């Protein structure tokens, strides 16, 4: 084994004049060095996970090592392979790069100005894509509204940080085939993309994703280091491993965006119009799917609110900040936060209760399925039921009374309320973001079962969930089932992990495959027990006759008989007891409707959140004292996993909104380089989470499941922001800027006080 280290650009925007690796090549332990020019001879461009060109946007060629120009600080420019990580890292210092430093453009608004530096020399401007979603006559609706609020909400640049950073290893076999091991989320699609960038057949590549220590979107591929380790391993003539440093993980960001909006509403609280111009700062345009979150931030408006006229437009802008990758929530937090701010702003303007205004505007249970203005077809829901449960869970009325009491004492308690919608299990046409997935179920002669899936687990427990589903269908004990995920050679084709899809697509395909196997077992048992197949029940490892439990045979015996006495017993089902099935959820529509809209999400989880914070108005510090959630992801396979996912997501969302921020200096150099400068919440920062499940099954998925795992991020961000806003309302503060970090909160208080306060 040999180890790789990557030399990264110290500049946000610069031309590479020349690179000299000669000294590095002679450094102790060094096996090979590589520059961008050299890599270009050995590998093609990295294919986009989602190419903006597919949607009419601009695109660029992405290479594993920069050629000619770097467009972000931290972009890989050269690499070293050595006997040890230490040797490889030490040798980086011996590489000389001559840069012509160019002025960077870091702010998205500035990047859109006429005279801004161009991130990509051959582009007319820095706008990657502009996507409008218009429904109804918004100008007229705003004119007709009793009230209009015009304001902005901005969300800062943040990141997702799995416990285990990224890691890749490439092994070339003597026959020219390649085995790639990676801490990744999408083995099959990566195989295709590696074959394209490396110029070798897809069949010659095996991708293995072993147990992954957290994905969170960060490990969706398109990163330079995937192609890079393969090229380095070829050069070195032995397996090469690269494992990322936390500083490298922290180069990758997401979400940064500004919403400039007008919202119109009537005296009774009915929201009638929304106009919103969104600008996202996607940093460097890379091949990983991050930039696409811009699309979602616009598409998801107006969530489950019934607003007759909406005009939402997003512009994704490239700058010399770090690249985006998917961050759990995939841009939907970019809808949830501003939308929930707007609803609260309207409520405050009218003096209306914040639960009431949501009741007034959310889709009612009897109106589902419901088509939103952007064409999303929301499968099912009971938002009002969830609001009722939340009011009870947090004892909302009592909380409001307590808030009033504490205000008299000069204490600033805030009650946050937020509704959250999470479109899940996406299928984006023309990309390898697939909405269906596959599963193979195999029962051997011992009755043991192996399940192979196309979905992977980032540690969320979907493997256990899928095993539970198969155990239920086959009536065999859980410990007789094994599961294999993340191996392109063993598993049926699938898309891996993203978009809350693993149980929706993976779980339901397991149902179909297990039912096929169960069918054969039932047929075999029927023959052996001399009963009708329809009367055979499978449970507790036994096949028994309905109503006559003493007439039973172990399922393992049936399996053994099928495999060993197949010639002896006429009519017994044919082996193998195996089936591979794909599950394609209903409710996805790719043919554009008369308005040109498609419907890429089969199912829509949701939650309502309540949080209580106390703000120290002298320091801006907040204390989170209560978190209450009512969550609905349809049918639940394993509530414990859902609770774990929700707890993780909501705390992640709160950290995103609170103290996590990727900051840069004026030259575009990252300042948030470790967990002491990028502050993630710890257990002591949050109270125990109070979670109530509501179950509104999806009519469009086999088991009625919706996605779980992403919901909570947008909700956590929104509810914390709204709680801080509520706490500071008496001071005249309206929170429009995230994060709600102590310095930002104190600055908002200072500004409000300078303006004379007054709520």
């Amino acid at each position: 084994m040999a180890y790789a280290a990557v030399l990264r650009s110290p500049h946000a925007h610069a031309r590479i004049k020349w690179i000299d690796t000669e000294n590095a090549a002679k450094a102790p332990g060094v096996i090979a060095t590589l520059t961008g020019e050299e890599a270009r001879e050995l590998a093609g461009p990295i294919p986009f996970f989602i190419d903006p060109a597919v949607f009419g946007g601009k695109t660029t060629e992405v290479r594993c090592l920069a050629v000619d120009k770097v467009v972000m600080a931290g972009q890989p420019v050269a690499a070293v392979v050595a006997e040890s990580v230490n040797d490889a890292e030490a040798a980086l210092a011996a590489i000389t790069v001559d840069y012509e430093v160019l002025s960077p453009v870091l702010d998205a608004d500035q990047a859109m100005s006429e005279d801004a530096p161009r991130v990509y020399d051959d582009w007319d401007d820095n706008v990657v894509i502009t996507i409008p979603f218009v429904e109804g006559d918004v100008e007229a609706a705003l004119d007709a509204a009793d009230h209009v609020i015009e304001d902005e909400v901005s969300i800062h640049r943040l990141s997702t940080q799995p416990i285990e950073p990224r890691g890749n290893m490439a092994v070339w076999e003597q026959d020219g085939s390649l085995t790639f091991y990676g801490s990744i989320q999408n083995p099959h699609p990566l195989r295709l993309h590696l074959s394209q960038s490396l110029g070798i057949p897809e069949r010659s590549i095996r991708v293995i994703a072993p147990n992954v220590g957290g994905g969170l979107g960060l490990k969706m591929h398109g990163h330079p280091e995937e192609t890079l380790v393969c090229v380095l391993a070829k050069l070195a003539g032995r397996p090469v491993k690269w494992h990322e440093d936390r500083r490298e993980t922290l180069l990758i960001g997401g979400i940064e965006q500004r919403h400039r909006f007008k919202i119109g509403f009537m005296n009774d609280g009915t929201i009638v119009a929304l106009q919103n111009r969104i600008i996202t700062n996607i940093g460097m345009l890379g091949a990983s799917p991050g930039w696409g979150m811009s699309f979602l931030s616009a598409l998801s408006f107006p969530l489950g609110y019934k607003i007759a006229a909406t005009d939402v437009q997003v512009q994704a802008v490239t700058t010399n900040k770090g690249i985006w990758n998917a961050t759990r929530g995939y841009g939907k937090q970019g809808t949830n936060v501003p939308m929930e701010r707007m609803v609260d702003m309207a409520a405050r303007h009218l003096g209306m209760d914040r639960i009431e205004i949501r009741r007034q505007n959310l889709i009612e249970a009897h109106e589902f399925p419901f088509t939103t203005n952007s064409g999303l077809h929301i499968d099912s829901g009971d938002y009002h039921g969830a609001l009722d449960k939340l009011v009870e869970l947090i004892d909302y009325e009592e909380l409001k009374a307590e808030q009033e009491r504490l205000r008299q004492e000069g204490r600033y308690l805030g009650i946050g309320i937020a509704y959250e919608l999470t479109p899940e299990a996406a299928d984006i046409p023309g990309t390898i973001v697939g909405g269906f997935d596959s599963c193979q179920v195999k029962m051997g002669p011992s009755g043991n079962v192996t399940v192979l899936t196309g979905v992977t687990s980032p540690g969320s427990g979907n493997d256990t969930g899928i095993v539970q589903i198969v155990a239920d269908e086959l009536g065999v004990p859980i410990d007789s089932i094994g599961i294999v995920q993340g191996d392109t050679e063993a598993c049926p084709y699938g898309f891996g992990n993203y978009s809350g899809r693993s149980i929706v697509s993976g779980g339901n395909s397991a149902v179909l495959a297990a039912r096929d196997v169960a069918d054969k077992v039932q047929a075999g048992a029927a023959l052996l027990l001399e009963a009708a197949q329809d009367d055979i029940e499978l449970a507790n490892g036994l096949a028994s006759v309905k109503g006559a439990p003493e007439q039973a045979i172990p399922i393992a015996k049936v399996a053994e008989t099928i495999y060993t006495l197949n010639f002896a017993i006429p009519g017994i089902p044919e082996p193998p007891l195996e089936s591979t099935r794909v599950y394609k959820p209903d409710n996805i529509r790719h043919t554009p409707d008369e308005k040109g809209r498609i419907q890429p999400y089969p199912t829509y989880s949701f939650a309502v959140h309540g949080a209580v914070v106390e703000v120290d108005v002298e320091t801006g510090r907040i204390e989170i004292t209560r978190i209450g959630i009512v969550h609905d992801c349809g049918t639940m396979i394993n509530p414990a996993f859902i609770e774990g996912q929700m707890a993780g997501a909501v705390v992640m969302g709160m950290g995103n909104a609170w103290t996590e921020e990727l900051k840069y200096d004026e030259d575009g150099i990252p300042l948030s380089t470790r967990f002491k400068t990028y502050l993630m919440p710890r257990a002591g920062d949050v109270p125990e989470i109070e979670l109530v499940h509501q179950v509104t099954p999806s009519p469009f998925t086999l088991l009625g499941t919706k996605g779980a795992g992403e919901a909570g991020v947008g909700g956590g961000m929104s509810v914390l922001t709204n709680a801080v806003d509520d706490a500071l309302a008496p001071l005249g503060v309206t929170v429009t800027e995230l994060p709600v970090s102590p310095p930002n909160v104190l600055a908002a208080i200072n500004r409000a006080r300078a303006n004379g306060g007054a709520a």
Partner: protein
Amino acid sequence: MIGQRFEYHAPASVEEAVGLLAAANGDANVIAGGTWVVPELTHGIRTPAHIIDLRHAELSGVSASDAGITIGATTTYSALLDSPLVGEWAALLHTMALGVTGGAQVRNQGTIGGSACYATPSSDAPAALVALDASLTLAEAGGTRDVRAETFFEGAFRSALKQGELLTEIVVPEPPSNVQFGYDKLKFCESSWPIATAACVLGLDGDGVVEFARLAVGGANTKPYVVDTSLLVGTPVTRDLADEVAERAREAADDPYTDVLADGAYRQQVSGVVAKRALLDAAT
């Protein structure tokens, strides 16, 4: 992973350590717990030719002396917490050590001397040492000298330590029997560095009247500073007086520190808040 080569030394005494330090002629790094140094080696911020590890130089431990209590430079936060002497005579250091984040790993590894020598504004020990009017003993090949904490800290990441010098011990004068301590630390969340700290040493008579007061603020300026508390002497601590002290603390924050977590304006504004809170904490 540390990307550069260096020579590692583990001297068994102060003499040996200062000898190695002199021989290295500036191209050496002393490490105590290494909780600052090792990450900086990993990030390539420090690239010394020699690492001089003090953990075997017999510099750890707490003892009583005529001058007060003597704390060895490599005494860890855990050792401070376990020391009955510290609990009895310098409870302020106990409270300070209790608030150090990073869990048992950092408390077992990080040292009070390391925090002092690094002299970062984002650290707990400096203001506490200034409030206690501690004295720091610095040794070099030629001999030793004592420096008061207040003058030891010269700015952000700057101290009175000269090239070739080591911190060997910290002496905290024995406090009068009527002393009360107060401590306040502002951090953003569990994982945050301290943003501003304040430590207060208050002597009260039987009626709660202040006989003496010493209040230091850390993290606000580039170095810890003493707040003028003369107005407290001869009167009980009241809210109004505390507000007055807060104002003085804020005025004294005239060289505020800025880093990625908080800018100078923020630190200046909260300096008065932590000062007031430490004072009120000491008074109750």
